[in-house]
């Protein structure tokens, strides 16, 4: 067990990170991600408020659906990346990262003073389990009355899971099909037992990280920080051309570096902060790296100078004083 943003969480179960990872890619795994935040934004002007204070477009979000989005700060950077669900026309549930919930809540509460809406912290009222893998729909379908095959990606349904009220969202952070299961904290253990006894492999933080990295997904704190301009990443599509908090700073910043995927030519691990070089010049830094459990190759994400960022560009990563050859590669890495 490790401390993660003041939550005690398993890094892995006795199965080990590699096996847990492979279980998700080949069948189905289950994560306890109850540390994530939940903020409700509700009121007559909830949509206008979110339109200005998140980067994606909540006006296009239908009731019963969710979208990946981001919270901007004043200086053209990010406070967090989030998921936003529209529960009613003027009632939204936002899922910030565990470590950023307080910052997001404080900024949104302050901004909400200008609108007819308010922000409620619901983190304590929800437990969250993530069931992920190609076998997840078949497994979960046995325990719910609704036909899960009809649930589209990014949609959610409110239903009962073995007698427990639960919201099932077809979302996830692994690059596989899956469901994020919102339930009452008192029901979490029942649902966890039910799903693991039915064949879901318990998975910890270690596998969660290798899965998202193999899929090329950013992690706030590694790839994204308060200084990250999302327009300089492959997630620029999230940022809509509309007025938003901090827009001037973000829109007007030129991208000196962009966030790219990197594949190393030998199996040393590129760790956060390692230098990226081209022709002996430092051109960037690694933000995350690991060995891909699927391919056994050394993979990484990092910022590289824009002129050296095309797919196939050769570079070198400095690992403990040695230069290891690498190539820019667009994720997913498997």
């Amino acid at each position: 067990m490790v401390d993660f943003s003041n939550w005690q969480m398993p890094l892995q179960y006795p199965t080990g990170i590699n096996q847990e990872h492979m279980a998700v890619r080949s069948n189905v795994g289950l994560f306890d991600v109850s540390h994530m935040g939940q903020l409700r934004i509700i009121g007559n002007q909830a949509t206008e408020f979110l339109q200005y204070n998140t980067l994606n477009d909540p006006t296009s979000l239908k009731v019963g659906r969710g979208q990946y989005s981001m919270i901007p700060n004043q200086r053209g950077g990010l406070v967090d990346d989030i998921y936003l669900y529209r529960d009613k026309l003027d009632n939204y549930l936002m899922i910030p990262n565990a470590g950023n919930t307080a910052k997001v809540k404080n900024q949104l509460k302050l901004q909400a003073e200008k609108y007819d809406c308010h922000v409620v912290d619901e983190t304590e009222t929800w437990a969250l389990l993530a069931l992920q893998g190609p076998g997840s729909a078949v497994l979960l379908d046995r325990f719910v009355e609704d036909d899960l095959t009809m649930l589209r990606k990014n949609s959610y349904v409110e239903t009962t899971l073995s007698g427990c009220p639960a919201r099932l969202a077809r979302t996830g952070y692994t690059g596989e099909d899956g469901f994020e299961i919102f339930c009452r904290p008192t029901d979490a253990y029942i649902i966890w037992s039910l799903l693991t006894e039915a064949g879901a492999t318990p998975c910890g933080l270690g596998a969660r990280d290798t899965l998202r990295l193999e899929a090329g997904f950013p992690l706030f704190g590694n790839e994204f920080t308060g200084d990250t301009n999302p327009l300089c990443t492959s997630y620029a599509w999230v940022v809509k051309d509309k007025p938003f908090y901090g827009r001037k700073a973000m829109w007007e910043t030129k991208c000196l570096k962009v966030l790219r995927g990197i594949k190393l030519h030998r199996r040393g691990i590129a760790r956060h902060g390692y230098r990226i070089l081209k022709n002996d010049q430092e051109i960037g830094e690694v933000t995350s790296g690991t060995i891909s459990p699927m391919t056994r190759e050394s993979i990484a994400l990092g910022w590289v100078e824009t002129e050296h960022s095309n797919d196939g560009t050769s570079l070198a990563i400095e690992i403990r004083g040695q230069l290891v050859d690498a190539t820019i590669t667009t994720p997913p890495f498997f």
Partner: protein
Amino acid sequence: MDFPEDLRYTSTHEWASAAENGVITIGITDFAQDQLGDVVFVELPQLGDQFEQGDPVAVVESVKTASDIYAPTKGTVVEVNSNLEDSPEEINSDPYSRGWIFRLAIDSTNELSDLLDAKAYRLNAVEE
């Protein structure tokens, strides 16, 4: 957790075999491999490299971290386990046999007798 009686140990979690024709074999202990997690890469020394007792000789890398492996005695590298290039996980599955890392030719067994026996290693280095 297993610590064979016929080996000697360091407080930095290396094991060393008894000398055979003046050559000792070195690896890391069951405790060390368990702490590291899945080994993904090993940096081996070059044949002929010479080391004093306590010098860093090799690096064992897991997803968690990279760990230096130190010379338990003074010696010269005469063999390295090149199987570890393709199968670094042998350090996890078989740390005392197929997971051996390098072999040193040594002058005398004086420094070997400085090392911990299995019982002392378990007490000092493992159950701290």
